[in-house]
């Protein structure tokens, strides 16, 4: 008889613990201070340098130079939420949010694009770098505005011409 009533002990144990189940969809999720979710790229701050693209371990951030535009593409589906991109960004354009409810029926809905216009070369007319990046680089090295709107290939040719012209008289 005493053996059969052993489960009664459990009731006091269960009462001490109380209800532990979280009512998740009907209440807020349990997100801590350090939790890293989806990263947000700020189009107002981004200069399109591609530092985040180089550091990204799973290549979730990729850079595409297509015609007149430079696209920085963020594929959330491949992101491992390490936060390295936010650490390396020189203009703090990347912030880590706490968003994790990202489930979608297609992978296309997990893409985020940042489109930069590219500046055309003064000499050959080919687009080469985003205007914002050139502006930022100009701020770093003053006096470079004379050759800032020339693409690297034309710049090499121009400087070679200058040296040769100087030598030949």
């Amino acid at each position, binding site marked *: 008889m005493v053996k059969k009533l052993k489960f009664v002990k459990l009731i006091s144990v269960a009462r001490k613990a109380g209800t532990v189940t979280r009512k998740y969809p009907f209440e807020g*999720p*349990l997100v801590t201070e350090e939790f890293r979710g989806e990263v947000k790229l700020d189009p107002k701050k981004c200069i399109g340098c591609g530092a985040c693209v180089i550091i990204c371990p799973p290549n979730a951030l990729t850079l595409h130079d297509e015609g007149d535009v430079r696209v920085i593409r963020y*594929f959330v*589906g491949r*992101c491992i939420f390490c936060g390295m991109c936010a650490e390396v960004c020189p203009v703090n354009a990347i912030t880590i949010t706490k968003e994790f409810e*990202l489930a979608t*029926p297609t992978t296309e*809905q997990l893409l985020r*694009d940042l489109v930069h216009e590219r500046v055309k070369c003064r000499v050959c007319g080919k687009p080469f770098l985003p205007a914002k990046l050139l502006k930022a680089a100009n701020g770093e090295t003053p006096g470079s505005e004379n050759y800032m709107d020339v693409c690297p290939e034309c710049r090499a040719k121009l400087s070679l011409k200058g040296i040769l012209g100087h030598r030949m008289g």
Partner: protein
Amino acid sequence: MSTADLSSALKALKRSVWVFHLNSGSCNGCDIEVLDALTPYFDVERFGIKLVASPRHADVVLFTGPITRETLPKVIRALRAMPRPRMVLAIGSCAVGGGIWHDSYGVIGGYPKLEEILKKEGIVIDKVVFVPGCPARPEAIIYGVLVMLGVVEPKSKREVYKVE
């Protein structure tokens, strides 16, 4: 089974789905999170979601891992054994887009690549939901199931920003 029967079957699947956990070479991170979602702490059995031991009993496959070459034939066999309507919940960055192993020689590289192989094999998957996360939180998995069953609309959208 005709398409009309299938759509009615999909409509009827609003609650009490039975899930089967299929690991295709995952690092065990997502598998632990799947286990977390089944514990009394998150308690998915309040929605009637129940883990079953065989794909023959399952409505939904909880799919984790980037599909290594070794597991590919087993994955195909398990998915073929499922009754229609078949539904797949791809959990974690590996299953969604290959994750950190997306260009490795030893893996197929995520569910989208597997889908092409399944098409050649003649296996139809009726519904797929992708749950990103490395690993995906138990809450994210519960949210993914709710998206799959059509209880909530997916929040995430394709976004294109133009830089001025």
